[in-house]
């Protein structure tokens, strides 16, 4: 008796199971296909960047300023340095505020008001970069009456702050409470505990956040269009329009000249190398750091 039941059960179950198994395999195949479809553009972009960029990067590109249309040669040296200059300004303005706000949220902000700031930072993170550009234009450019590196720095700083704030907070919260209590027990004031014990312990994580914010704004073009504006010449003055690598890439890419297209590719390769180096360095450092696993 039991055998017959078993066999009949097998007969009715088997065909359904086959259909289900086929669906299972098909869906696995679909998932693999999506991965391929997503990674294809990534590799296409990098391959094409290297293919077009490597041939165009030369000593002149890295050391000279742009030549007028029609003349071969010239480079983006002023834009590379200009980008560094604007990013330095943005970091000077953005990093202290971002880290400070992160400290506030982690150490004093476990309440309703902290939630408001937390939510504000998240919202600020989602504001389109072009809108940030408009605001920097309204605040800095309209008061100064001309485009400037400072306006670009302000725009990028506004974009850096929310990222730095949230990662700093997260990293400080990972520091065990016992460490703080030990410091209080030794009679160390709270502010000094925060700076020398908590922040010190979380340094690698906080730096990670800063680098991520930096990498994110390093390639930003939209907020610089009407703040830093761009410049064909050298400039290292805070109050003058300044060239930036992403701006230069944009202007050259939409131009009709082959020579400029070539340089746009070279510029893009330089930009990507800078950003990917920063991001990978951060990932590497985090994996080796104390809080990478936490």
């Amino acid at each position, binding site marked *: 008796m039991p055998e017959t039941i078993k066999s009949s059960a097998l007969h009715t179950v088997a065909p359904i199971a086959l259909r*289900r*198994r086929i*669906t299972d395999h098909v869906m*696995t195949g679909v*998932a*693999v*296909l*999506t*991965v391929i479809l*997503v990674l294809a553009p*990534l590799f*296409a*972009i990098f391959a*094409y960047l290297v293919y077009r960029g490597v041939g165009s990067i030369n000593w002149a590109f890295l050391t000279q300023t742009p030549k007028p249309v029609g003349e071969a040669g010239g480079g983006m040296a002023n834009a590379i340095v200009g980008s560094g200059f604007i990013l330095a300004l943005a970091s000077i303005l953005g990093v*202290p*505020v971002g*880290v*400070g*706000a992160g*400290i*506030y949220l982690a*150490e*004093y*902000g476990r309440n309703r008001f902290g939630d408001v*700031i937390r*939510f*504000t930072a*998240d*919202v*600020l993170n*989602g*504001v*389109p*970069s*072009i*809108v940030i*550009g*408009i*605001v920097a234009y309204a605040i800095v450019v309209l008061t100064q009456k001309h485009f400037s590196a400072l306006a670009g720095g302000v725009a990028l700083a506004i974009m850096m*702050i929310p990222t730095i704030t949230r990662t700093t907070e997260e990293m400080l919260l990972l520091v065990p409470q016992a460490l703080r209590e030990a410091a209080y027990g030794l009679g*160390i*004031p709270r*502010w*000094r505990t925060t*700076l020398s014990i908590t922040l010190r312990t979380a340094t690698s994580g906080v730096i990670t956040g800063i680098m991520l914010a930096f990498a994110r704004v390093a*390639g930003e*073009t*939209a907020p610089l*269009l009407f703040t830093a504006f761009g410049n064909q010449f050298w400039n290292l003055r805070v109050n003058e329009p300044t060239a930036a690598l*992403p701006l230069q*890439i*944009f202007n050259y*890419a*939409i131009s009709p000249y082959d020579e400029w*297209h070539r340089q746009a*590719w070279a510029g*893009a390769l330089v930009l*990507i190398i800078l950003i*990917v180096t920063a*991001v990978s360095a951060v990932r590497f450092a985090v994996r080796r750091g104390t809080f990478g696993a936490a």
Partner: protein
Amino acid sequence: MPAPQPVEATKVSSLPPAGRRAEPFLRGRRRETGDRVFKAAMLLCGLAVLATLVLIVYELTLRSGPSWHAFGFKFFAGHDWDPVNEHFGALPFVYGTLVSSFLALLIAVPLSIGVAVFTTEMCPKALRGPLSFFVELLAAIPSVVYGLWAIFVLVPILSNYVEPFLARTLGWSGFFDGPPYGISMLAAGIILAIMIIPIISSITREVLMVVPQHQREAALALGATRWEMIRVGVLRNARAGIMGGIILGLGRALGETMAVTMVIGNRPEIAKSLFAPGYTMASVLANEFSEATGDVYLSALIEIGLALFLVTIVVNALARLLVWTVTRGQPSRANA
């Protein structure tokens, strides 16, 4: 950093045992000042974050005033964008932003969910790290580089192969009609899709990872195949979070500027065909803002910026709420 730092530092490290009685009182008061100054400074930084948002709202509202007074609500219903006669209607830009973003979602959502499911549920553990690293690398590529690639690689491919093919097979629908120039709404949608995939897939991955393991085990114990387990035990539980990821991707797509500006064609027209050029709210700002002459023109552009800002705020707030309820609201689903 507060001023009394060096004094405090020496006091703390070299406590003279003799003065122990007098010290605590003095130290206590100084410590209080130090703490108060420090807390105030940190609070100031926190307030700066809040102030930035307030400042954005204030500047955008204030400076879009003239346009608001001149056109009112009709601003977003008008078709004409005529800087010469100072007549402005933003409908073509709103249309372009919405269509390109939804097109991007249409392409990106299935792909991102597929990638997230593959990395969390299917692939060997050793492959997980590198795979998510590669997908996140997509997020590290600057917008302008996407645009550059799109102009010189994507657009020629579209105009030579994809668009003629779509016109032959789906031309009857009216969505794939007209000359296949490549520079089009379609190109903008595709490049946007590539750009938002890392966002949607990384959030989906996060959300899938917080689905309790016993949900999977229960489904498998009931005899489900792996796909059935994923469908019933994982995806269904993570719906709200995945939705949050999608909306976050939408927020990014709505505000994306450079790559779209470089391939969409920048023509303020509303066309049914996806082969036709269009214009988005962000691109018109990028192209015309620094050349805008006249108060009304400038304030019309700023009003577009304000609209873009408000839409992305709402979209992002919605997304955050959805993701938060899934990844942080553990208690509510602990007994699920």
